[in-house]
């Protein structure tokens, strides 16, 4: 494939998973077998992997291939360069393994189709971000990736998952908006939305720093950068294990990718002021990375849930990546080693964290729990899983000849070099790095020890078996490159990283220097031995004395404050509303003296401004609705529907009709009495109390109307007195004795009701309800009165305004 053809294929490659997802939906709709569906999805992911792999040759010959399709506001531009491929390749590989694994994991899942389709769409979005050629395409793919992956987080639908999902949604939405703002500002600086370096004359301005800060925040949320990491340790563990592998192994890398692009493309410059600017930005990222790695490691040590531990470990490892990228940008022309270390660590982390999450998923599936306190001794039961996880652990802790070793020592050298160059507090950087590395060793010793090694509680893990074959295959497929890259990191370093960095005008000699001088050198191996030793001791002490179970109070975490701020803002909005509706509006305050007439016009909420009579009626009306709804609900209860009748549906409908009518009838009677009592009442407070009692006893009223319906259908006898009794028995006596019963009309209603209950033809509620009509007429009378009064006022206002217009005209 020549570069031009490859460029034309690029958009197709990215769109392919989406088409495959649509096809998968269609397959599932038309009821294909489970096996065929799984096979299709796996093949689709495999084709994507093959497609990305095929890009390597043309990208290396042309160093940059591009293609575009019309989409959205213009064209979606895609560019593949070696750095982009560094991200795309492991993404496609982990995705393929995860899909394979998921096919087995989702055996008993209620929604396998949703999971797999979501996963394919996310694959497309993920490739789209790392292969995007302009900022708009990048943003669109980034947002789709961020928000669609919410479906994976909440996949199991548990309460915990939904809570994590809420947090995830807010963080990624906020990150997305910050990113968008950054992009807008960057556009304002450059005048285009190409993914290119700033023009050299932009100088050092607030605008530029604002753009950088916003972009860093946007990508940082995704990357799990402290203090924006709060969603990660909640969201990653609650997702199904294959999804955790994707979220933790691949998707957070998109954030690192963005930060790399910011530092090495968008805000990079070779000379003058601007170099100092890039260096300052690199220093910020380096510090954030150092803090992130330390915080992540400390909190990972404290976890007793295996998946949470792995999630915190992801935070910490992203700290390593950011430190490498930051040091690389800080060192500028000498920074190739640190940047390459960061990039390599991204690939490595994808592989080992993917394998670890898949392995823990297999353990959790077979042992039924991922709680470290309840596991143990599994290495005999699950030897293959154990091997895969051991290899991944060796990778993550940086054992020589496993993949983490090369990337960590490159980052280490980069940090040392940056520390030497900057001096000051950055001299601490190396110690922070070593502490975080020791912490990494400690929490993985803890993990392996608790899950696989220590003596299990009696009987708990006896029945555990090895995981099914596809899951094992997926884990091993990730474990193999961990060993290969540990042995020959130069394949990746010289194959992709060097051409990638030299395309970005970064001198790449330090990489060759590293490979020849430092790789597997005694010095680096010693520093690993040191961290491993101290990490082992830390783990031993911590586990022995229970240090890992110490918990800080909630307010120490930023999480607490975000939540407090969010809820506080909602509280503020609520308070604003109640303040405004209490005062109605500033205009209302001013007009308070103008009397009652003008108030409704300026009131903020017309529904609230009404006369005492209306208000009283409104409350009674709500009681009516409530009683009716409750009575209907009661009638629908299974015990109420007599079993064994010949036509239960008919019966149910008739009962419902009758209840609907009778409860309305009953309460309307009550309302009539209450309203007339209100009209004659001397003291309305008593009536209000009576009404409150009414509101509390709607359930009883509903029940009594149901009782009446039953007695009616049995004896066919109902009269006004019964109706009266029904509500008077339940409620306290009306404060004003006002006896205006209307037996004739009540009789009429009762007849209608009887017809309704006994006559099978009345299946539906009639169009007009005589009871409601009476209510409607009286209500309309009140409102017409109110309206005529206020309409006149409105018209008067209009005339006043017209007159003032004329006056104004005369004055001018």
């Amino acid at each position, binding site marked *: 494939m020549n570069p031009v053809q490859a460029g034309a294929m690029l958009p197709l490659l990215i769109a392919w998973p989406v088409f495959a997802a649509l096809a998968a939906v269609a397959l599932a709709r038309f009821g294909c077998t489970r096996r065929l569906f799984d096979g299709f999805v796996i093949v689709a992911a495999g084709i994507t992997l093959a497609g990305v792999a095929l890009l390597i040759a043309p990208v290396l010959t042309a160093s940059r291939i591009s293609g575009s399709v019309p*989409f*959205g*506001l*213009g064209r979606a531009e895609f560019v593949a360069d070696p750095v982009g491929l560094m991200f795309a390749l492991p993404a496609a590989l982990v995705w393929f393994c995860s899909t394979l694994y998921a096919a087995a994991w989702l055996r008993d899942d209620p929604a396998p189709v949703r999971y797999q389709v979501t996963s394919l769409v996310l694959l497309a979005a993920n490739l789209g971000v790392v292969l995007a050629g302009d900022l708009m395409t990048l943003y*669109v793919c980034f*947002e*789709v990736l961020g*928000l669609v992956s919410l479906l994976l987080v909440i996949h199991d*639908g548990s*309460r915990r998952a*939904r809570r994590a999902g809420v947090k995830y949604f807010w963080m990624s*939405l906020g990150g*997305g*908006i910050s990113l*968008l*703002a950054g992009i*807008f*500002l960057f*556009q*304002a600086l450059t005048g285009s939305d190409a993914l290119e370096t700033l023009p050299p004359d932009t100088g050092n301005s607030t605008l530029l720093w604002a753009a950088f800060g916003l972009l860093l925040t946007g990508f940082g949320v995704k990357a799990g950068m402290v203090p924006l990491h709060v969603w990660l340790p909640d969201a990653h563990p609650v997702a199904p294990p294959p999804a955790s592998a994707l979220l933790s192994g691949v998707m957070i890398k998109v954030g690192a990718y963005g930060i790399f692009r910011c530092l090495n493309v968008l805000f990079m410059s070779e000379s003058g002021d601007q170099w100092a600017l890039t260096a300052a930005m690199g220093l910020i990222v380096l510090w954030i990375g150092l803090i992130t790695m330390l915080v992540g490691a400390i909190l990972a040590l404290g976890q007793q849930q295996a998946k949470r531990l792995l999630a915190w470990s992801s935070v910490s490892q992203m700290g390593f990546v950011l430190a490498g990228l930051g040091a690389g940008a800080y060192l500028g022309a000498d920074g190739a080693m640190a940047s390459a270390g960061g990039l390599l660590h991204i690939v490595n982390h994808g592989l080992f964290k993917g394998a670890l999450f898949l392995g823990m998923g297999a353990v959790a599936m077979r042992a039924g729990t991922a709680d470290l306190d309840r596991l143990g001794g599994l290495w005999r039961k699950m030897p293959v899983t154990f091997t895969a996880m051991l290899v991944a652990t060796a990778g993550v802790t940086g054992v020589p000849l496993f993949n983490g070793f090369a990337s960590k020592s490159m980052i280490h050298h980069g940090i040392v070099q940056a520390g030497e160059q900057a001096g000051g507090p950055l001299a601490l950087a190396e110690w922070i790095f070593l502490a975080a590395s020791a912490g990494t060793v400690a929490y993985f010793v803890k993990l392996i020890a608790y899950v696989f090694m220590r003596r299990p509680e009696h009987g708990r893990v006896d029945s555990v078996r090895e995981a099914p074959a596809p899951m094992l295959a997926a884990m091993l497929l990730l474990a193999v490159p961990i060993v290969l890259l540990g042995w020959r990191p130069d394949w990746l370093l010289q194959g992709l990283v060097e051409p990638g960095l030299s395309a970005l005008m970064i001198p790449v000699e330090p990489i060759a220097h590293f490979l020849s001088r430092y790789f597997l050198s005694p010095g680096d191996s010693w520093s690993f031995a040191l961290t491993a030793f101290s990490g082992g001791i830390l783990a031993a002490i911590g586990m022995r004395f229970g240090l890992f179970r110490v918990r800080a109070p909630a307010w120490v975490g930023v999480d607490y404050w975000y939540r407090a701020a969010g809820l506080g*803002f*909602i509280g503020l*909005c*609520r308070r*604003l*509303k*109640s303040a*405004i509706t209490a005062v109605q509006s500033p205009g209302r305050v001013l007009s308070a003296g103008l009397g009652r007439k003008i108030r*409704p*016009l300026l*009131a*903020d*909420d*017309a*529904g609230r*401004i009404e006369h005492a009579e*209306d208000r009283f009626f*409104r409350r009674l009306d709500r009681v009516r609705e409530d009683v009716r*709804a409750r009575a209907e*609900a009661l009638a*629908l209860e299974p015990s109420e529907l007599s079993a064994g009748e010949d036509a239960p549906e008919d019966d149910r409908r008739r009962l*419902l009709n009758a209840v609907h009518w009778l409860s309305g009838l009953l309460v309307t009677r009550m309302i009539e009495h209450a309203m007339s009592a209100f009209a004659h009442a001397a003291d309305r407070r008593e009536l209000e109390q009576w009404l409150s009692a009414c509101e509390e006893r709607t359930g009883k009223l509903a029940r009594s109307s149901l009782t009446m319906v039953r007695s009616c259908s049995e004896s066919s006898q109902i009269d006004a007195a019964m109706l009266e009794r029904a509500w008077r028995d339940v409620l306290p006596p009306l404060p004003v004795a006002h006896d205006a019963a209307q037996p004739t009309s009540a009789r009429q209603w009762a007849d209608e009701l009887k017809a309704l209950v006994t006559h099978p033809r009345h299946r539906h509620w009639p*169009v007009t309800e005589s009871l409601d009509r009476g209510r*409607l007429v009286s209500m*309309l009378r009140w*409102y017409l009165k109110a309206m005529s009064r*206020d*309409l006149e*006022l*409105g018209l008067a*206002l*209009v005339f006043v*305004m*017209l007159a*003032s*217009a*004329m006056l*104004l*005209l005369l004055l*001018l």
Partner: protein
Amino acid sequence: MSGILPNWLLPGLAVALPVTGSLVIFRAGHWKHRMTGLAVTGTVLLVTLALTVIMAVTVADGNRIDLVLFPLLPPWPVAFRVDAMGAVFAMTVAGLFALAMMHAVGYLPDDRRQWRFHGFLLASLGCLIGVALAANLLTLLLFYEVFSLLAYPLIVHERKPEAFNAALKYLVYILSGGALVFTGIVLVQHIAGSGTFVAGGMLPDGASDPALIVAWAALMTGFGVKAALMPLHGWVPDVHPAAPSPFSAVLSGVMVAAGVFAILRVLFEIFGAGLLQRLGVLPWLAAFAGFAVIAGAMRAVAEDDLKRRLAYSTISQMAYVSLAASLASQTALAGALVHIVHHAFFKGGLFLCAGLIIATTGVRRISRMRGLGRRMPWTAGTLTLLALAMIGVPPLSGFTGKWVLGSGMAQAGGYAHLAIILAGSLLAALYLWPVVYRIWQTAEEPGPDCGEIPDRKPRQDNRWMLTAVLATGLITILLGLAPRLPGFPLELAETAARTLLGSPAWK
């Protein structure tokens, strides 16, 4: 449009056809079959929509169609002029009315009163198209006022007491606004001797500043009432929930937008960007609009009634447009116009969803919407989609508007404006996400559940409403994925923005 119809006839027909149709429809209650009446209404709507589309295609490259009817007051004829901005708005109006009418067929009970609703709806469609195509201030006001009066019977159609209350408040607000606009017109007449819209402004530069400022303030306040700019918004949150849902969709989607549209006309075709900058009034508009974006959204957050929440959201979203207008930058203005169109469909769609939910279950309060997702999956899905569009998630239509608007603002140097619209979209998430969360919530968590309330309407009635709802969802996706298709709002909006800022394309 060559051949069948002469161009000048198009605007006249687009206004007259729905008005005439409404007169026929008022009689439809006496016809034998419901379908006859519906077919007539549907035909009128579709033909009107087709006419507006034809007009839009005709003026897309900067042409103009003029039609002067008859003098109303001596120097002021009733006159129509189709330009890109008017055409794109007319098209939106006709499209949204068609969806609302389809929804109304299912929403309203099948009785004689439904024809009243359809009749008034058609008549008000004609008037709103008249607003979109008006060639001078007086014609615009005339059609706007008639529309506002025709809205009264539509708002109180269900004869609920709160609807009467709210409609009364609405009348007073709108008529006072109209009176202020009239004052403004008189002043404009006094200053310039005419009120015909001219791209780039028509007021003479030499006029006295105080007179200009008073005229500006009168017109802005008057149209601000209709556009629901924050201190003048009082009628919106009461009328929207009280009106029948199909009409709430129209009110929110195009009635408020028509106010904003009129503001744009006044700003750029009466005053002109240069004069406004000299007068220094634009920062005032920006301040009010910015306040409306934030405060409207904050009020929306606190509301529990879905329709009330959406009403406040309209206040917030429509203020985006005024905010963009206050920058007088071409890209931002194009973004604002696109936002008007896209907002009409997603907000209209949200109101239609709310209407379908209310008609089926009677649930209006968000806190009681748990379990809707399982009971009405298509409606809930569309509601989610439209909510995401309003938040501005790509690749849905809200994102298109937000992108053009935002990048225009950043390029024009309006960083505070940019911050406000981004905050507005974060707040949009804050008031819409709880709705989405609630409807998809399952029964495990404690709280009221709507799943057990029996259906109020038989299922087949919902088909009309469901189709309308799904159509808004599809439009939202289409406008997001391919806004650059020829004849789509974006192209027209860009032409319009170019024209408005004084480089008329037809010269």
